[in-house]
């Protein structure tokens, strides 16, 4: 695809802006910002990936993965700024997910240790885990705010923080995982996943593309579970003081 033909696809954005202006939706500015950001970010990452793929240096691969995890953690943190030090459980969850999934994929030889596989697959897995983390933290804060009386009651009965918050953590973990489970259930029926679509457009055998896509889906499922569980159980102690008093996020 040439830059010229790509630039014509900007017409879609223009159509969206015209509709927004006509219906007074007030999202024209956001459409421009989103489009400009997408162009700059993707072009930039395109050139960076080209450089990293060509260099065959392990350090660059690790640096790219670290960048992906770091940005994802920072983004998920914005959902729970009121929980002190929440960035650490998020990082732990994402790192655990990355290590677990890549270890299996590399360990059983599904993918080779090459930048084009490691970085792209990390991006997909960590990106989905980031969404799960955001949903979990959002729900956890709501659970604690709405369930304050119940949690305090358990503490007043001499229960531990874990006993007090366990039912709420379970709900939050479920909330983090359900969108991934639901989208996996309908995959191929409602939407053809992006990676598979990309491979098919690029001329790959559809059956081979499906195999890769299934691998990614399983990794995303596992990743969302690992991330949600690790973050849930590492975050709850931060909601209590050393004297086992509940800190309600404000």
């Amino acid at each position, binding site marked *: 695809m040439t830059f010229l033909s790509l630039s014509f696809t900007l017409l879609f954005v223009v159509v969206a802006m015209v509709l927004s202006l006509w219906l007074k939706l007030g999202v024209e500015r956001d459409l421009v910002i989103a489009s400009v950001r997408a162009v700059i970010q993707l072009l930039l990452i395109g050139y960076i990936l080209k450089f990293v793929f060509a260099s065959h240096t392990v350090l660059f691969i690790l640096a790219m993965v670290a960048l992906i995890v770091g940005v994802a953690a920072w983004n998920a943190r914005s959902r729970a700024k009121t929980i002190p030090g929440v960035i650490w459980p998020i990082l732990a969850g994402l790192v655990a997910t990355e290590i677990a999934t890549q270890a299996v994929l590399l360990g059983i030889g599904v993918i080779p240790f090459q930048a084009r596989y490691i970085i792209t697959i990390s991006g997909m897995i960590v990106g989905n885990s980031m969404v799960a983390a955001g949903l979990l933290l959002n729900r956890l804060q709501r659970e604690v705010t709405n369930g304050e009386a119940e949690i305090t009651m358990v*503490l007043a009965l*001499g229960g531990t923080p874990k006993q007090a918050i366990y039912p709420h953590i379970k709900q939050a973990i479920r909330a983090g995982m359900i969108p991934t489970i639901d989208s996996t259930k309908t995959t191929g029926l409602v939407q053809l996943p992006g990676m598979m679509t990309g491979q098919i457009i690029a001329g790959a055998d559809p059956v081979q593309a499906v195999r890769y896509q299934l691998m990614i889906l399983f990794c995303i499922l596992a990743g969302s579970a690992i991330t949600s569980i690790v973050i849930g159980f590492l975050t709850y102690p931060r909601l209590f003081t050393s004297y086992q008093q509940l800190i309600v996020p404000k």
Partner: protein
Amino acid sequence: MEQIAMRFDNVGVTVAGNRLLTDVTGTVHKGRTVALIGPSGAGKSTLLSLCNLLRTPSAGSVYVEEKEVREWPVQALRQKVGMVFQTATMFPGTVEDNLAYGLRLHGQSLQNPEALLENVGLSTDLLHKPAAELSGGQKQRVALGRTLAMRPDILLLDEVTSALDIHAKHDVETTILDVRDRFKTTLFWVTHDLDQARRVADEVWFMAGGSVIEQGPATSLFEHPNTPELKAFLSEEEEETK
């Protein structure tokens, strides 16, 4: 000499620059009932929550049986110092599940739920009923039973009857006094109802603006208030009830 259940030594609580309690000093003796009265925002509930360490004092010390609350193992303290709240939170399950809830947290089981239910003035027929289906007064008595199952020596009562109708209020109050007499439980009772304070308390602490303004035996404190704040409060309350 009377044994001490709880002691407050120049206690203060400050949250985000707001002084909720200032220089509270006082002693609650074992087996006695102390009522905390005063206008809303006086710091009564805050003082209560220091006794089982649901809050930490910013200044001074709170002692339970002469041991500072922060030196107690938290779980042991909260078993010894039970608390019943204004709103009776019921956990999912039956009345029996709710009565046993606290004990199960500590890996114990409730031996005689029927007797406990009778102790709080409820029929044993209710034992297997879903707790969510109880009336407000019944829920409050189940909440009381749940706390009593832990065999606390001190009971903190935070406006436990204020959300109840007059009959339920009377029943819950009678139940608490009956339990107090039978188990020699020390009661630290926050109430807005001055008649209730007169009926139940051996001693009354009047609080306003985060301080204990006046404390003394219930009979003399109501009949002969010393401070202008208490006099004003009592006359305002009297006006309201007319």
